[in-house]
């Protein structure tokens, strides 16, 4: 009664035409006997079972009659000991009802496993596996009860501290691998703030699958949900329909609405109240006015609802590696000018370098976080190509980044963490003792340049064992020490693509052209060196099996020296089509 008064009015269940009426007064069986189940005269004119099932399926979920109303007397009764299904959920039948308890990832072919811990003075089941849940074991059941129900139950003590430690390690792994802002939500969850990091992992879908693959390799099952707000993602990961749920931007409301109220991280009192008042899904809470809702479920519940829908901010306490060297400064007055920020950076670097030196470490990447008075956070990071603890060098890298700090109304707290460190021992002072004042470290130069143009745009060029001119040089790490090339004459400028020559006059097969036209100008050749034959690399591409090029270095009348080649050796037609190309320019 109370429920009908409080919740939104629902359509009354439609009266269903039953194939067999229960009312003995209206019994259609002809008197005088001869009745048997399924007799043709009894079936005629009435919808058959499939038709009824179809009509039932067409009804809205809340209006579907329970199976018993269909006249099936032999319906299996609910097991008296299989508890856990509360009254509200047993009223709703049908497959469309959302899960009421958090979803459990099922591992096939596993013995039923439950974890048992002392709750109060009683041993209770605190976690069940999928197989055990299918057998009717639920969380909160007494351990003795569970053992009585299932004989071959694998019962192990719960280790919450070990679980928390594992979750922390996983969070640190996520910090290093996925995104810098990760929060642990005990007992079994991680929040990853993917803002601005998704593209590094190939998009949202691929990120989710990579994350699950990582967990699977490590021996864990995982459910991933990606949504606009942490609250919504939290709910969808636990109560969502699939193991991977990616909610498009702006679709939070639609995704969260069908979930049960329990997905909102309410405390037990609020959950009990919600059940009493008939709030089952999140959608039931939405049309209710805030005042009455807060009075019935408590203010915390309203806040949780707002957080899930993005109406209220939810602070994230990011995991930091306690072992990472860090320094922090809290300022008496907020600051905002570049000079003062540089001063704080220098102070922080002084502290950080002292700690790095004490631990024998060098920093490869340092992140500085500056908190604004309005609660915003500014993050500045530098990376180095080699482990270093040279405060002056690091300061130079940070100074390049000062302009990216938006001080807003002022910055009041600074923290600097060396997120990636490598062992760095004392370095020999050979050059300095020999009298050289300036120590030249290419890694320092690389860091400075990479601070401007990005790590990828600073490189060295290393030789590759190949004869094909396009392949002899590859970009390598800017701190590597590459080897050298054989001393065949090579141009200083190599065109990205060889350019075709037209109107070439040449004597086949072993002579350079006498004249050629390139970029619209005619060139008369006065001297030539060659040919230098370059064979295709058949082990790379099928098209290069027979291909060959004959290279000539020619000098033209005006003084230019060019590198030409002819496709084919001039004798066999399958080595090339005898076309002429210009590939490079000598000085």
């Amino acid at each position, binding site marked *: 009664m109370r429920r009908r008064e409080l919740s939104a009015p629902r359509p009354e269940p439609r009266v269903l035409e039953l194939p067999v009426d229960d009312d003995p007064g209206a019994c259609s069986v002809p008197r005088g006997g001869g009745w048997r189940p399924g007799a043709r005269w009894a079936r005629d004119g009435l919808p058959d079972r499939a038709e009824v099932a179809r009509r039932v399926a067409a009804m809205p979920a809340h209006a579907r009659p329970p199976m018993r109303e269909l006249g099936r007397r032999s319906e299996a009764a609910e097991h008296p000991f299989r508890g856990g299904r509360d009254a509200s959920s047993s009223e709703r039948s049908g497959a469309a009802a959302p899960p009421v308890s958090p979803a459990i990832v099922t591992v096939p072919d596993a013995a039923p496993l439950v974890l048992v811990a002392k709750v109060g003075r009683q041993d209770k089941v605190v976690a069940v596996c999928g197989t055990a849940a299918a057998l009717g074991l639920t969380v909160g059941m007494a351990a003795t009860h569970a053992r009585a129900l299932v004989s071959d139950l694998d019962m192990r003590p719960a280790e919450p501290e070990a679980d928390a430690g594992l979750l922390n390690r996983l969070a640190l792994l996520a910090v290093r691998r996925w995104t810098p802002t990760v929060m642990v939500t005990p007992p079994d969850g991680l929040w990853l703030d993917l803002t601005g990091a998704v593209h590094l992992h190939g998009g949202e879908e691929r990120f989710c699958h990579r994350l699950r693959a990582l967990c699977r390799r490590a021996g864990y099952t995982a459910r991933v949900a990606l949504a606009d707000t942490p609250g919504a993602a939290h709910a969808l990961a636990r109560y969502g329909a699939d193991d991977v749920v990616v909610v498009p931007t702006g679709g939070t409301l639609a995704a969260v609405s069908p979930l049960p109220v329990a997905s909102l991280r309410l405390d037990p009192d609020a959950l009990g109240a919600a059940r009493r008042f008939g709030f089952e899904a999140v959608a039931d809470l939405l049309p209710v006015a805030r005042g009455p809702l807060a009075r019935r479920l408590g203010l915390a519940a309203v806040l949780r609802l707002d957080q899930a829908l993005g109406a209220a901010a939810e602070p994230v306490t990011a995991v930091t590696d306690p072992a990472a060297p860090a320094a922090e400064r809290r300022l008496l007055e907020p600051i905002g000018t570049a000079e003062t920020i540089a001063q704080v950076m220098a102070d922080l670097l002084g502290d950080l370098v002292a700690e790095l030196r004490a631990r024998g470490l060098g920093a490869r990447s340092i992140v500085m976080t500056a908190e604004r008075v309005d609660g915003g956070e500014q993050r500045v990071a530098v990376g180095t190509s080699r482990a270093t603890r040279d405060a002056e060098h690091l300061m130079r890298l940070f100074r390049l980044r000062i302009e990216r700090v938006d001080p807003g109304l002022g910055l009041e707290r600074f923290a600097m963490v060396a997120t990636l460190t490598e062992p760095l021992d004392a370095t020999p002072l050979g050059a300095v003792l020999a009298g050289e004042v300036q120590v*030249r470290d290419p890694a320092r*130069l690389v860091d400075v340049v990479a601070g401007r143009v990005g790590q990828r745009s600073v490189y060295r060029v290393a*030789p590759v064992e190949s004869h094909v001119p396009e392949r002899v040089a590859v970009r390598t790490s800017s701190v590597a020490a590459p080897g*050298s090339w054989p001393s065949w004459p090579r141009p200083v400028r190599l065109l*990205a693509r060889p350019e075709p020559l037209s109107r070439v006059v040449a004597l086949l097969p072993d002579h350079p052209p006498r004249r050629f036209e390139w970029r619209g100008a005619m060139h008369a050749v006065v001297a030539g060196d060659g040919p230098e034959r370059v064979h295709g690399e058949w082990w790379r591409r099928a098209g290069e099996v027979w291909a060959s090029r004959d290279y000539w270095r020619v000098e033209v009348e005006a*003084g230019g020296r060019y590198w030409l080649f002819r496709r084919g050796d001039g004798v066999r037609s399958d080595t090339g089509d005898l076309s002429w190309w210009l590939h490079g320019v000598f000085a």
Partner: protein
Amino acid sequence: MRPTPLQPPFLDRLRAVACPVPTDHRLSPFGIPALDGRLDGGLRSGALHEAAPATGSLADDAAATLFLAGVAAREAADSGAPVLWVSARTDLYAPGLAQAGLAAADVIYAEPRDDAAALAVAEDAVRDGTPCAVVLEASRVPMVATRRLQLAAADADLPVLLLRRRGRGGDPLGEPSAAWSRWRVSAVPSAPLPVAGVGRPRWTVELARRRGGEAFSLVLEGCDATGRLAVPAAAVRGTDAPAGAFRAAA
């Protein structure tokens, strides 16, 4: 009345006023008396030097590139530090540079997105002081940027070699610049060899402008494997091949 002859100390003072370039800077000589003599001993190390191709042809561009690469290679050989090559172009061929004395281990390449970023990178690198020389390829370089580079180079005492590419505006050396010296390089026909083949490259190297010095033009032979130029030997009568004759090595 006869004018009093100028006393040597007075002359020195006058010279200092007229020519404010300090003369006690480090020099990096070319090792060619004909060139070093006209440059008062060599290129100034801590300065900005510009080179541009004389025409828009790719051959002159390559000659100007190798001219600067030779200067950088000699600096690298002297100091043992790497050369930073800043260029937004991708057609530089490292094996070719290695044959001018800049081995793969001596060069660090930076590939900025545009000329403005290239100038910023070059200035950062010069102020860092780690490289022994910075080679910068750019087409549009404003006067202010060249002045900044020149001051930074003088502070760090390392050469900044600016390769001015030809944009649409014609001769890049026509624009104002604070560079200490500005060179115009073009490829000319090499000396005919007594045998078939292409001889050592030969360039016309023209000093278009130098602070406190005079312009001149020389025909030089291109870089050898250590980045050194050479003065062509005087042509011996009779060894010249007839003009227009074709020489080829098979």
